């Protein structure tokens, strides 16, 4: 299956070119780098969206206006059937959180801030009854599902994921187009050698193998180089995540994400080799 790759030295001499000669490896390195960065961003967004979505699916909050009677309300929530992990978030903590985003206005008493009780809902919970019981203690209290509050955020994250996927596909297509141009350029450069080979009985497949091998090596070297630079950039980003972590929601890459990223250079090499083979065969059949 890969016999064409492991050729004898005389066959390697036929094209008279060395690996890394020409723009193909550099083009593929740039494409690999771009694809890996975009793919890493997309995968991190997907992971974040999944974590946020999973965390919010059973999570609810009871809003207690002005923070009055928080302790009694918390007692009611904890004693309700099917409720777990109920925790109170006092008004002061809410104001501190708001201060990070709104500045001093966040701690101003002119800004009405409710206290919150967050809790997980399990089997047998009756949210309407719970809301009624809490409202009986703290009038105006409301129970809100986290997934409703986070809906627009999740929607945005998913849209970004799709954009990343489309970008990866477009970059892959651009890479394939670059390989087609490179293969056709190589055919023009070696036209005289090809004519001689055909004249003495070489088949199209034999001629194609020479170009297929050259582009496979160029693509392999280019994609590994591009991937290595992308890995360095991603590691630097990870190192600064302590700074950016809160802004990007603690986006991280799991083992499967890393495996997907590691397969990108191999996938691009395979794509480039297949495209080169197809383009060369098609060109030989049309032109000669």
């Amino acid at each position: 299956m890969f016999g064409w790759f492991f050729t004898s030295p005389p066959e390697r001499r036929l094209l008279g070119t060395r690996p890394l000669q020409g723009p193909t490896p550099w083009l593929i390195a740039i494409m690999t780098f771009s694809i890996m960065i975009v793919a890493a961003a997309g995968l991190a967004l997907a992971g974040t969206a999944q974590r946020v979505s999973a965390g919010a699916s059973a999570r609810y909050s009871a809003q207690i206006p002005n923070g009055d009677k928080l302790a009694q309300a918390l007692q009611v929530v904890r004693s309700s059937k099917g409720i777990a992990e109920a925790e109170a978030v006092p008004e002061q903590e809410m104001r501190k959180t708001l201060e990070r985003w709104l500045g001093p206005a966040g701690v101003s008493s002119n800004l009405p801030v409710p206290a919150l009780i967050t809790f997980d809902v399990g089997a047998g919970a009756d949210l309407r009854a719970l809301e009624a019981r809490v409202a009986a203690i703290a009038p105006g209290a409301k129970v809100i599902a986290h997934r409703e509050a986070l809906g627009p955020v999740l929607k945005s994250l998913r849209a970004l994921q799709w954009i990343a996927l489309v970008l990866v596909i477009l970059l892959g297509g651009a890479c394939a187009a670059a390989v087609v141009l490179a293969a056709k350029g190589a055919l023009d450069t070696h036209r005289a050698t090809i004519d001689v080979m055909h004249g003495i009985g070489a088949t199209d497949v034999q001629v194609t193998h020479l170009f297929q091998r050259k582009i496979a090596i160029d693509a392999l070297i280019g994609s590994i180089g591009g991937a290595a630079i992308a890995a360095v950039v991603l590691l630097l980003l990870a190192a600064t995540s302590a700074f950016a972590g809160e802004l990007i929601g603690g986006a991280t890459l799991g083992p499967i994400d890393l495996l997907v990223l590691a397969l990108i250079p191999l996938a691009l090499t395979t794509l480039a080799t297949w495209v080169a083979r197809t383009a060369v065969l098609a060109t030989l059949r049309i032109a000669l």
Partner: protein
Amino acid sequence: MRGAWQGARVKGRIVLTPIAEFDSVGLRYGTGAEVLRDLDFRLAKGGFYFLTGPSGAGKTSLLKLLYLAQRPTRGRIALFGEDLTAASRDELPHFRRRIGVVFQDFRLVRHLSAFDNVALPLRIAGASEQEVEGPVREMLAWVGLADRASARPPTLSGGEQQRVAIARAVINRPEILVADEPTGNVDSDMARRLLHLFTSLNGLGTTVVVATHDVGLISATPGARIIRLEGGAVSDPTGVLKNPLPAEFG
């Protein structure tokens, strides 16, 4: 000189096996006028032929048809007893490996050594390096270039390049050897030596077709047949090229 149809006797009758048959063959490039028309002739297996005619008569085009670099636009060509009119592109390499070609401009691969150029047909045919080494050294010695095996074409003289091209053309013992103006770039002494190579090959059974203007070359090869092309057509007033005489049977 063999110069004869090679055939086999089957129950007392001779079965002809011409090596090349052209029937009503025409060739045009694109939408231009026909450069070759109504070619009707046969080449005997083991024969020696000179293809002559004025410049522009279509000699090179005829040779291209013969070594399968070009398909006819009409008519029928059969080589080695097989009709190639409708042969697929993938079938042609098999037939090309049975034909050796010496181009006027040599067409050596410039970045390969003389050894690698001569070895090319064997390697393309799938020979191993062990099978290549001996015959290529022997062939280079035969054309007097044993000590130039590692030289690349740009460092060889015209005559040396010509001999490398001939060695490459005959390395796999082709059944037909086609040479286009082989003496066009060499002096008279070299031309004589090349002719000696061709007649030696012919003596080994190879059908030789040489396109040339060189009258001296033709006159130095008694027994060779002459195919004269004029205005894209073969001049065959006696019809002997189309229907060879029984006396030519081997």
